[in-house]
């Protein structure tokens, strides 16, 4: 479904009509994998994964599902009267157990009209207002953190999806490679196809679907929010415990006495135990090993090999290829050498022979234990996807007649910003630029419009007097009960890790 705007357009309340005579009879025989939709007289039989004639109802996993209702979220233990036009007695709402999210709420973009839902509720005796809308964002992107040491591509390289440029490789952070995907430049600055493909990619990323990316001059990746990245067909399992130097530092004492030299192979900083400060602290004698690459500080080497998907994010498969040789004045036959990667996935044990040539040997149990511990200390490698968007323009006009006051109110921590109920980090500085973890948002929170742009939920919650003070559309406030009784909605459980948005903010007491 591409066009979401207008489907539930301005959130106006539908008037219930008189019952109509139903002309069609349900079929006598229906295939087992279909559901009968009785939402209207057409009585579509919908196969799994498909939509009915209206595009509003579909068969999701064998269940008849409304595809575009506004999503309401309830706290655990709250019983709520089902849906639709149910009569509402308005009894329970002393402590606001239901939050109206922006998902499926529709929008009034690009005009100045009040947001689709402006909802009043009470939380611990305080009157709260939540302004609920779906923003249409051209100025938005995804920052993707990929936990891997493997070489994905050079910084600034173009990232492609279905052949189109959709973003770029940005910095490497500790144990992770960051990508920046989407953004206004690709959405609207390139060819039409580039914009459409970018929009499609962004919607999929936001909705936690897997996408296959290709980095120019680098790897092919499959990324999905909350899942392990797949690099060139190989699922990443561990995030490195640290760089090579850090790994030396962490495990030096545990190796001490079991080996005479340890090299932790790492594309960024390869560590050599006896030269490293950690080895010096243990009074370890020099081993005479000579490592390729550029020496940084003692025991720390840059560029021992090329980046790749082999040992420790390098391109090597034989660890000895980074050993240039041994100083015959220092090295001695029988010297025990461990070479290991920063995740412990690769490890080999060697003993120097009479000619000072390292020979592979069975790894002693005590050494194996420390290698295993490196693995144990690696956290599972994940892809995390953060949505970054600027709420500007007329979106703010849907909240208040004086938009800058909304911005100020957010900065002053009087107004809480959430996206589908998920807490949003608001960037310091001008404007309302938010950042949110898509895995904390309800499923299928993101939509698109053909502009192309991304549709995403956004809610502003504040005390009622604060809302009035910033010039809010107070005449359009309705109760949660009214929304429940009158809007097409879907009620889901609150995601327990998210803070309850109606709880007062620091300055909002």
């Amino acid at each position, binding site marked *: 479904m591409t066009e979401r705007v207008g489907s539930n357009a301005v959130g*106006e309340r539908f008037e219930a009509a*008189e019952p109509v005579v139903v002309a069609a009879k349900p079929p006598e025989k229906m295939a087992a994998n279909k559901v009968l939709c009785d939402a209207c007289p057409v009585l579509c039989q919908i196969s799994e994964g498909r939509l009915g004639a209206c595009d509003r109802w579909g068969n999701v996993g064998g269940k008849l599902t409304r595809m575009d209702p506004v999503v309401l979220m309830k706290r655990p233990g709250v019983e709520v009267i089902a849906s639709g036009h149910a009569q509402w007695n308005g009894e329970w709402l002393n402590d606001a157990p239901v939050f109206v999210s922006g998902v499926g709420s529709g929008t009034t973009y690009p005009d100045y009209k009040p947001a689709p839902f402006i909802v009043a509720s009470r939380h611990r005796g305080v009157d709260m207002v939540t302004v609920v809308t779906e923003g249409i964002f051209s100025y938005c992107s995804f920052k993707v953190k990929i936990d891997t040491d493997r070489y994905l591509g050079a910084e600034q390289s173009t990232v492609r999806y279905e052949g189109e440029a959709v973003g770029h490789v940005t910095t490497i952070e500790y144990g992770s490679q960051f990508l920046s995907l989407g953004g206004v430049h690709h959405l609207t600055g390139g060819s039409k196809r580039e914009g459409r493909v970018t929009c499609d990619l962004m919607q999929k990323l936001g909705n936690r679907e897997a996408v296959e990316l290709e980095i120019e001059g680098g790897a092919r990746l499959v990324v999905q929010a909350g899942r392990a990245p797949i690099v060139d067909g190989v699922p990443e399992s561990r995030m490195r415990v640290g760089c090579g130097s850090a790994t030396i530092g962490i495990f030096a004492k545990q190796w001490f006495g079991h080996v005479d030299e340890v090299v932790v192979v790492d594309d960024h900083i390869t560590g050599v135990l006896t030269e490293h400060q950690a080895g010096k602290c243990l009074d370890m004698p020099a081993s005479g090993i000579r490592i390729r690459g550029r020496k940084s500080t003692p025991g720390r080497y840059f560029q021992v090999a090329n980046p790749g998907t082999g040992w420790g994010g390098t391109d090597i498969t034989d660890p000895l290829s980074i050993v240039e040789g041994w100083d015959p004045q220092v090295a001695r036959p029988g010297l025990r050498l461990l070479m290991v990667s920063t995740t412990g996935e690769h490890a080999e044990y060697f003993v120097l022979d009479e000619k000072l040539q390292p020979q592979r040997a069975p790894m002693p149990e005590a050494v194996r234990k420390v290698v295993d511990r490196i693995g144990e200390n690696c956290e599972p490698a994940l892809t995390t996807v953060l949505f970054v968007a600027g709420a500007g323009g007329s979106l703010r006009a849907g909240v208040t007649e004086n938009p800058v006051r909304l911005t100020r109110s957010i900065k002053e921590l009087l107004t809480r910003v959430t996206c589908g109920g998920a807490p949003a980090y608001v960037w310091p500085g001008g404007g309302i630029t938010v950042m949110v973890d898509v895995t904390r948002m309800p499923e299928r929170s993101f939509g698109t419009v053909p502009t192309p742009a991304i549709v995403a939920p956004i809610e502003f919650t504040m005390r009622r007097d604060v809302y009035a003070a910033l010039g809010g559309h107070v005449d359009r406030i309705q109760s949660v009960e009214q929304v429940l009784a009158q809007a097409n909605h879907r009620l889901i459980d609150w995601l327990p890790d998210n803070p309850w948005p109606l709880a007062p903010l620091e300055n909002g007491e």
Partner: protein
Amino acid sequence: MNGPVRAPLPDGRWHFQHGPIDLVIGAEGDASAVAAALEDCWAAFGAVLPALVAELPQLRSPCTPALRLRGPVAQTMARACAPFAEEFGLFITPMAAVAGAVADHLIRCFRRPGVARAYINNGGDIALALTDGQAFDIGVVADIDAPRLDGALRIAARDPVRGVATSGWRGRSFSFGIADAVTVLAADAAAADAAATIVANHVNVDAPGIERAPADRLRDDTDLGSRLVTVRVPTLAPELVHAALERGAAFARRCLERGLIHAALLTLQGRSRMLDTQDMAALT
């Protein structure tokens, strides 16, 4: 079972919805006449979908002279589609005109004293009511990827046009062709709807990368059976775009000659072709 619902839009227009039918209704004139017309329209609206559903198997079967239909909307659908089956020998079912026929059926409620002009937009298929001296300007967006107003068609009361419809492969209905949009002006919305569908089917070319799939694998209960419908169109070389538009335009010209339509605008990947008759309102 959800019945029909209606809601006022903040700008004074109304939204009627029942199952797959979504109408946006705009009417101007004497306030009481407009209100009465809206009430009549609402009263008629509830019966539309059940009546169609009652004849759905016939409506989903190919048009032939033997097809017998009872409901007024169903008959309008069949009448609008018949020329394409009978004169051109093409496959078409009455469903090709369902949206336009519903709009035509209900616009009649607004053809009454006091209502200056009105329109019913049924998902892009639009029926018009115009009194003397009145006109509608219909914006034309040639490229949905870069929406901008490419022109406005002024449809005045003296013009023979009371229906506007748009069809394309990316719309809600399936297409055998690859047009981004074919907009047709015709005497009523049902005629425009059927013609837009068939003209859009003719905007076509064989090229690698165009993906087609059997309609019944994409949606249940389709009237198109296993016929191949377009699911993906890559960026095409300019000569292919030109060839596809030419094919569509050639068919649209035949429709014009037979008086089935009054004008057509065909668009594909940023290029467009406009065809109209001399007496038509010009593209302003």
